[in-house]
């Protein structure tokens, strides 16, 4: 494959598209599929055929505004005014197709307001625009140009230099400089090296990686292949949780397509470089998102972390040098190579470059996926793009970083999103889950929910995490039930300190964060439960009802 051939494929695809007057794109991400967008697509296709219009009904990946699903995007070829419909059901099909050469169906139009204001799509540039199962559509949108460029015009070191210069940092949450990691693996010596894509997204409220894998899997494959070339790996593993069947099936199909097109396998693009990717399914353990546990899981062992050092870059899969990056990190690679490190470094803040995908959930109007340049104030994300808190309720906090993160109150909402800024206020960037809470949320209950999550997801290997999270959960339950004393609170704070500083892996080290951050900003709520058996959100029944069930209902609502 050469860049000319890529161009040819792109032209063929564009010519095909030009055959139609209208393109009717139906979102087939998990969110919309759960509302039967697959049946909707079938009905739309039938209606389109019956209408005799030159209309192409096709599936695409996630369009972002999951709250308004099922989504349909109508793209009339004679104008650049796309129409985004939301809440479309089978019964609307006839009307929708009939409206193509007339006025749009008013009642189905999405009320976007500021949803797209300030968003910048790099990782999601193809999401909702291409059929994720067709590699040629990816190619038609500049796909695989970066790989061909890297393989034919660059050497591994200059690829690493580009990534370093771009300022890209790990999107799994840790924020380790990607270029530095690649450079370390490239320098490590071993008869074989591996590239692993971490798609074991497990934070409550996070679905960024799932969407990327469902909507644009080729982008991840291209990123991994470029990485393999840069670090000298010949074998890759995509570790995806089994709870993402759609992502797995699209990735499986995409790997086959990529092999067919010669982007994987032996002598890729006619060069001496060979690389292939195998999928490994996670069996449902959150801790397997931790890199050493993930590696153990791929090796067929019990998914438990081991102490680092040695880091996987030196001694990873089967003791060999291993590069392990998150889905979103790999999804950033192709655009960086294609458009250059300087372009990417021009986006974001001084230390946090590029964009970040966030999954907005909780008490927010526009539940869905957004991609924003680093440095955007949280307030703009929540109240601008997110549309604020619905039902006239009052905003209380936004939770980032999942069970490892913390709750950020209103006073810090003007903070620009960056790794450092979020850590400074006691939360963390995390993988991108953003749960908005209003005044109906009890912060003690929220902390309790996340502690329960950490307790049940602890692998049980090290004492502080295994037994410490259980004890902390017990104390938090006691507080919620209105039965705790100040001594209990002191013990909780002490346990937070011990578990944070003595646990073996990131799960335990960050498990106290939801408690610490809620104690930092909402200590009065803890004290109200303890001193007055009062829950201002009315969530905890403080001794009258079973708080555990209420807590779970609270956060999952």
């Amino acid at each position, binding site marked *: 494959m050469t860049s000319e051939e890529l161009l040819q494929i792109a032209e063929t695809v564009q010519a095909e598209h030009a055959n139609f007057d209208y393109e009717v794109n139906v979102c087939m991400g998990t969110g919309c599929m759960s509302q039967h967008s697959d049946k909707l697509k079938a009905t739309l296709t039938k209606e389109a055929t019956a209408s005799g219009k030159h209309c192409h009904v096709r599936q695409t990946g996630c369009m972002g505004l999951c709250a308004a699903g099922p989504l349909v995007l109508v793209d009339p070829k004679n104008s650049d005014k796309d129409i985004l419909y939301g809440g479309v059901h089978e019964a609307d099909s006839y009307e929708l197709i009939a409206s193509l050469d007339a006025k749009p169906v008013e009642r189905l139009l999405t009320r976007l307001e500021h949803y797209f204001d300030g968003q910048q799509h790099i990782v999601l540039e193809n999401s909702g625009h291409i059929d994720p199962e067709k590699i040629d559509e990816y190619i038609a949108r500049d796909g695989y140009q970066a790989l061909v460029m890297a393989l034919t015009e660059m050497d591994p070191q200059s690829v690493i230099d580009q990534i370093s210069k771009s300022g890209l940092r790990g999107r799994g949450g840790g924020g380790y400089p990607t270029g530095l990691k690649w450079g370390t693996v490239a320098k490590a010596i071993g008869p074989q090296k591996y590239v692993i894509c971490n798609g074991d997204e497990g934070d409550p409220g996070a679905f960024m990686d799932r969407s990327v894998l469902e909507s644009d899997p080729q982008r991840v494959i291209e990123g991994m292949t470029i990485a393999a070339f840069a670090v000298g790996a010949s074998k890759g593993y995509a570790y995806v949780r089994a709870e993402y069947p759609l992502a797995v099936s699209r990735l499986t199909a995409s790997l086959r397509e990529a092999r067919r097109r010669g982007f994987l396998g032996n002598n890729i693009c006619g060069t001496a470089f060979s690389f292939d990717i195998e999928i490994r399914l996670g069996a449902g353990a959150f801790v397997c998102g931790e890199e050493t546990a993930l590696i153990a899981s791929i090796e067929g062992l019990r998914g438990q972390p081991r102490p680092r*050092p040695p880091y996987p870059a030196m001694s990873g899969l089967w003791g060999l040098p291993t590069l392990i990056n998150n889905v979103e990190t790999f999804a950033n690679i192709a655009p960086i190579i294609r458009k250059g490190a300087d372009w990417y470094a021009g986006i974001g803040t001084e230390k946090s470059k590029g964009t970040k995908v966030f999954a907005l959930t909780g008490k927010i109007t526009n539940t869905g996926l957004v991609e924003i340049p680093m440095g955007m104030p949280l307030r703009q994300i929540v109240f601008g793009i997110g549309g604020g808190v619905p039902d006239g309720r009052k905003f209380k906090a936004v939770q980032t970083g999942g069970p490892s993160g913390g709750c950020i109150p209103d006073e810090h909402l003007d903070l620009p999103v960056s790794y450092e800024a979020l850590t400074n206020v006691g939360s963390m960037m995390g993988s991108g889950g953003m749960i908005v809470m209003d005044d109906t949320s009890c912060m003690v209950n929220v902390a309790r929910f996340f502690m329960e999550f950490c307790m049940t997801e602890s692998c049980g290997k090290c004492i502080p995490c295994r037994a410490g999270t259980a004890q902390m959960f017990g104390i938090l339950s006691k507080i919620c039930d209105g039965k705790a004393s100040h001594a209990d609170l002191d013990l909780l704070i002490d346990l937070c300190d011990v578990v944070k500083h003595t646990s073996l892996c990131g799960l335990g080290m960050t498990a106290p964060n939801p408690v610490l951050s809620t104690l930092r900003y909402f200590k009065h709520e803890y004290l109200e439960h303890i001193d007055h058996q009062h829950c201002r959100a009315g969530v905890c029944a403080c001794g009258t009802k079973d708080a555990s069930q209420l807590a779970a209902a609270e956060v999952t609502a």
Partner: protein
Amino acid sequence: MSVATDVKTLVIDGINVSARADQTILEVARENNINIPTLCHLDGLSDVGACRLCLVEVKGSPKLNPSCVLKVEEGMEVTTSSDRLKHYRQTILELPFAERNHVCSVCVANGHCELQSLGQSQGLTHVRMPYRNPQLEVDASHERFVVDHNRCILCTRCVRVCGEVEGAHVWDVMGRGIDSIVITDLCDPWGESSCTRCGKCVQVCPTGALFDKSKVGSPHPKYPEFLTNLQVMREASREGL
């Protein structure tokens, strides 16, 4: 001279010590009579860094490091005891006491238990957190041995000795987090498992979780040092001595 570079010098608790490059802080500390408490570590088994008792402070590192797996480095400055470490170690010991049903007075290992003696040496006089008192099984199906999960602290020494030394891999861990338990085979009764009846697991078990039926009612000291002897003998037979 490659030989010379294989030796590192470092400081542990203010004492200058030398070490081979492949040694751990724990090894070097013990060579120099500096006591670092351990529970999951056992000479002769692989290290897993799970009990977190052997955490030490390293100058310049924000994190605490498990000395059982921390390799020496030139110029390293290590502190093995401080008020902070003491508090962490006490708390880490309290946790397993509260986690399951450790009733020292009626335990077969009373007086020969590593958890019990560590509690004492680390100055633990009571447990601040509530006892969880889970309901756990006692499996006495084996003709010689018993596993009492009430006393298990999940150090996984049995798992490691069975897999690494005996080569049988009868023991493993099932479940996760607070619900983890050690199992034989695929959670079959011990007596019906593929156990070779070698008894190594009983000897390495630091508490009364694994014990010999014949020792009930009498002192039950354990002799984990057989492991290092076994290693020496295996080494010698490999070299044909």
